[in-house]
């Protein structure tokens, strides 16, 4: 990865994120119409309706802007919850040795195997539709990659000289874990968090597309679902289903681009400048 392309990724990712953040913070300012304003149905793209109108006559661009907040909120909350779960279990599995550590490691391995979407569908079907439920389901099933990354890093840190000296100094275990190991994990955790937002959003869009989303607070995935069910797809109304689909793509892409930049930075630190075959 070259320096320039890494910074280009950062700039593009930030730009996209700022746009979507503006959508979700100030939807009333950006959207040209109110959410419940109705017009003639099935209008094509025009000056008055940037993305046309849907089968009910709602302005699609307005709906798109308002859906940004719901989508981002579900993505961010579910990834925060899964971050806490993943960090806690990963720390436990990585640092604590003996039976409990084995158990925590086992839990991670077991949950890594659970087929995500089918499991999410079953749990979400039992819980019923609702933004909170969707976020909870995604978080409960999405913490494993974070836990795995944290476990690996924590196990690595445990071997380092500074942790060994802390142990020799008889610093209590809890203090070592929370005051000394945890701050060193921040980089790993943040990198995982960025990716996890993206994957949580993808998961949310898949669930909403299947029809398990919250009908009262529409997300982009839900918009695609409506377009698909109510004839937008059969009529080839690209403006209706492609626009929210592209928003999901771009939003998820923006987080992945940020991740690309952080990976580049991490690789610089690891390699410590020039590489050589002589070691």
């Amino acid at each position, binding site marked *: *990865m*070259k320096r320039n*392309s890494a910074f280009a990724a950062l700039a593009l990712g930030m730009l996209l994120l700022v746009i979507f953040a503006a959508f979700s913070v100030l939807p009333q300012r950006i959207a040209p119409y109110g959410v419940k304003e109705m017009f003639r149905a099935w209008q094509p793209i025009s000056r008055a309706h940037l993305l046309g109108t849907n089968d009910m006559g709602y302005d699609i661009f307005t709906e798109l802007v308002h859906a940004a907040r719901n989508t981002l909120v579900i993505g961010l909350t579910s990834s925060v919850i899964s971050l806490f779960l993943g960090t806690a279990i990963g720390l436990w599995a990585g640092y604590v040795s003996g039976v409990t550590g084995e158990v925590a490691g*086992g839990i991670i*391995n*077991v*949950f890594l*195997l*659970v*087929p*995500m*979407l*089918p*499991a999410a*569908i*079953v*749990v979400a*079907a*039992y*819980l019923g539709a609702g933004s909170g439920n969707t976020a909870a389901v995604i978080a409960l099933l999405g913490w494993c990659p974070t836990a795995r990354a944290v476990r690996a890093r924590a196990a690595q840190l445990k071997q380092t000289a500074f942790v060994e000296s802390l142990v020799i100094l008889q610093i209590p275990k809890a203090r070592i874990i929370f005051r000394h190991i945890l701050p060193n994990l921040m980089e790993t955790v943040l990198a995982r968090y960025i990716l996890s937002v*993206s994957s949580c959003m*993808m998961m949310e*869009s*898949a669930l909403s*597309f*299947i*029809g*398990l989303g919250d009908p009262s607070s529409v997300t982009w*995935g839900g918009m*695609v679902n409506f377009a*698909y069910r109510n004839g937008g*797809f059969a009529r*080839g109304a*690209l403006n209706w*289903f*492609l626009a929210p*689909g*592209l928003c*999901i*793509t*771009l939003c*998820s*892409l923006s987080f*992945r*681009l940020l991740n*690309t930049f952080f990976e580049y930075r991490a690789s610089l630190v690891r390699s410590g400048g020039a*590489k050589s*075959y002589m070691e």
Partner: protein
Amino acid sequence: MKQTIRQLISAFACLLVIVAVNFFLPRMMPGDPVLMLTGLEDDLVSQAEYAMYREKLGLDAPVAAQLGLYVKSLLKLDLGHSYHYKRSVGSMLAERIPNTLRVAVPAVIISSLLAMLLATYAGSKNGGVGDASITGAMIIMNAVPVFLLCMLLITVFAYHLGWLPFGGLASANAHNAVADRLRHLVLPVTALSLSALPSKYLILRNQVAASTEEKYVLYARARGISENRIRYVHIFRNVSQTFVTMVGLNVGFVLSGSLIAENIFSIRGMGQLMTGAISARDFPTLQGCLFVSALAVIAADIVTRLVCLALDPKVRLGIYEAE
């Protein structure tokens, strides 16, 4: 070896977790377990029917006895009865799984081969134009949800160009049955392959790029071995273990993707069964689908571990496990 055994144990534990979820979820949810297990609506069930179902499901027995019965019926491959379709879940799945496999298996194979080829090419040209453009395209593709991909493919190739059918697995009156079936498979398999490709590619590319800096590559080059041979024989062997693991992990991903793709391409597979079951609140069917997908993922995982064991003497002999 020890590592492999541990992983086999966790595969088995995963199956137990799924069984536990399937068993406890309907019994723990707020609401009546009879309604949760049958998926019937509260106001549509008469008193007599309710009592009949309650007895039939054995809900009056202690939980331990219920669990015993549940596990026993699973061991007999009895996945329960769908009160919505009025059929056994097992027979419906037996009907649907072949259709899912028809789409999912080619997608796993094609995406794995493509990922391997592209990754070895791009990884060995680390930083070049070819590498940058392929990797950039893959990062973008990784962000495209599978339903959007399916819809776009249909819009372009079926709706506008009219080259390929919109969906289904076969036409009613085709001249050449085999060619017709293949034509129907093109779009869903392409969509699934494209969605499964990027994640595998990105990991493999990094691995290949890292191994091009290893000493054995330098040594092979010094011996005058051609770049292509180094790439596809020497480096390939060294990343093959990651490759096999990726393919194994991908089975779950493709299965999830196929749940969505089947709906859009109107393929009568497990995914369509599942989405139909959601709107009908047909919980036994949903649970059966979850159980079968978990079985598939776990089977893939076990096969992966064994193949890795056969492939890599380092794993087989446990040389690097001391850490």
